[in-house]
């Protein structure tokens, strides 16, 4: 009994992974074959990019602030509060900026993609689209994927900038340290490998959150309840996968561009 359940679960998991890989690959390669729906791409970019701006700015500012608070307490023990700037900017740019933005946007947009496409499935709108001769993968999925990749790239830059600014505000107004020194340290110790690392990650995260959101949306079954289930799965799996892929990517990127 138990073994059968495990076997079934494992089989399901493998099948899901296989379906997802095929799906993600097809959606991605559609960009190189017409028709390409540019207007959809712009609409989605607006929803994902500008729509997520407030939460990205807020979470960036607070995270940078927290980093400055926490680090300066520790660094004070060694009399090294001067390197707070370096600490905040490196952490934000290499890790927290991309991951935080990825997780925030996946909470907001992977869920909305899954529920929107899921409702379209259960009301037969997806079937209607196919019956009208339009490929939902091209029309709905591909624009969302590329809009997410492009927008997450820019949102990550915004998050990084806000994080450093937040850290600066805390340093100046709460820790009463020198702001110029903070900014100098934040800037001087940045190297290209750090920036590359920070900017490659969001490309992957954008792909993950949008393809997972659409994947679970399109495989919705079982009415409105099913839409709820798909939404949960999409948010959970995209967030988990973003953190896991971050781990892998960091490994690879550190090998390619050794830090320090």
């Amino acid at each position, binding site marked *: 009994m138990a073994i059968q359940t495990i076997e079934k679960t494992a089989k399901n998991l493998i099948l899901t992974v296989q379906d997802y890989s095929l799906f993600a690959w097809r959606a991605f390669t559609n960009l190189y074959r017409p028709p390409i729906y540019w207007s959809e791409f712009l609409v989605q970019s607006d929803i994902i990019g500008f729509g997520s701006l407030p939460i990205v700015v807020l979470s960036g500012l607070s995270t940078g602030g927290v980093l400055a608070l926490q680090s300066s307490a520790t660094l004070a023990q060694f009399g090294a509060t001067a390197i707070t700037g370096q600490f905040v900017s490196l952490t934000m740019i290499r890790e927290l900026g991309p991951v935080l933005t990825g997780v925030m946007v996946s909470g907001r947009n992977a869920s909305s993609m899954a529920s929107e496409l899921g409702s379209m499935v259960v009301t037969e709108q997806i*079937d*209607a689209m196919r*019956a*009208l001769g339009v490929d939902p993968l091209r029309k709905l999925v591909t624009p969302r994927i590329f809009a997410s990749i492009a927008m997450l790239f820019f949102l990550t830059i915004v998050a990084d900038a806000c994080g450093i600014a937040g850290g600066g505000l805390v340093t100046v107004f709460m820790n009463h340290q020198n702001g110029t020194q903070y900014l100098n340290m934040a800037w001087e110790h940045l190297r290209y490998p750090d920036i590359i690392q920070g900017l490659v990650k969001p490309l992957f995260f954008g792909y993950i959150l949008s393809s997972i959101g659409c994947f679970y949306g399109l495989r919705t079954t079982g009415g409105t309840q099913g839409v709820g289930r798909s939404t949960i799965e999409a948010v959970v799996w995209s967030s988990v996968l973003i953190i896991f892929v971050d781990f892998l990517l960091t490994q690879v990127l550190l090998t390619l561009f050794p830090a320090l």
Partner: protein
Amino acid sequence: MNEPPASAQPGPGPSGQDIAGPVAAFCNVSIAFDGPPVLTDVSFSIAPGETRVLLGPAGVGKSVLLKLANGLLRPDEGRILLFGEEIARMPEEQLFALRARTGMVFQEGALFDSLSVRDNVAYQLIQERVPNSEIDRRVRDALRFVELEETFDLYPASLSGGMRRRVAIARAFIRQPELLLYDSPTGGLDPVTSTTIIELIVKERDVSHTPSLLVTHRLQDALVLCNHRFDPEQGRMVPFPKGETDPSTTFLMLEEGRLIFDGSLHDLVKSQNPFVREFLE
């Protein structure tokens, strides 16, 4: 096997090509989801100009059969021909072009609720980049056909069930399809609205002679369809003289996944099959 009779008149498809054989044909089609089979060994065909009415109780697999006809679902076994091409194993990418030549009215309408009525009806034309002025004109024509011109700028959420069904019909008609698939177009509607919709279908049948497959569980609708013709002079449907029926309208009946009847109204009424008799009563 179900060899369709060679039709005397050429296919009425707007693209002008004559389809020698049937417009669509099922050969020994079976399908199951997880559970007992939904359709078993179903064979029939739709000749050019023919209207086939598919009868059967709820849950027997009528919608499934309709979705098989344009490749929205894939059969487990058997062959399905659409416009002379085998679609049961055709890759999805190639199917889109074939599907675009059919028109389908879904059971619940399936209008895109994020688009206005105009954009819903024009969906295919917009994809084909038809100029805007022409789209507007053709959408107005289509909406006039279903007598809903005033809904042009509205959204589906603000329409009644019957109006939505008619908009869905306009969307299916707009590109003058070569095969029409209607899924319970009168399901859940009051008798007056049902008659309006049946009248539209009769009009389409007698004006454009588009071959079609129509699902219904209301025998009443099927009889109206058979006993009336569209009179272009009066602009409405009128009953045939007593004893006459439309020769191009024929019937199919499903019971527990099997096709138990395939023939004309005359044969249907005469049928000795106990299930058919029960359905007729």
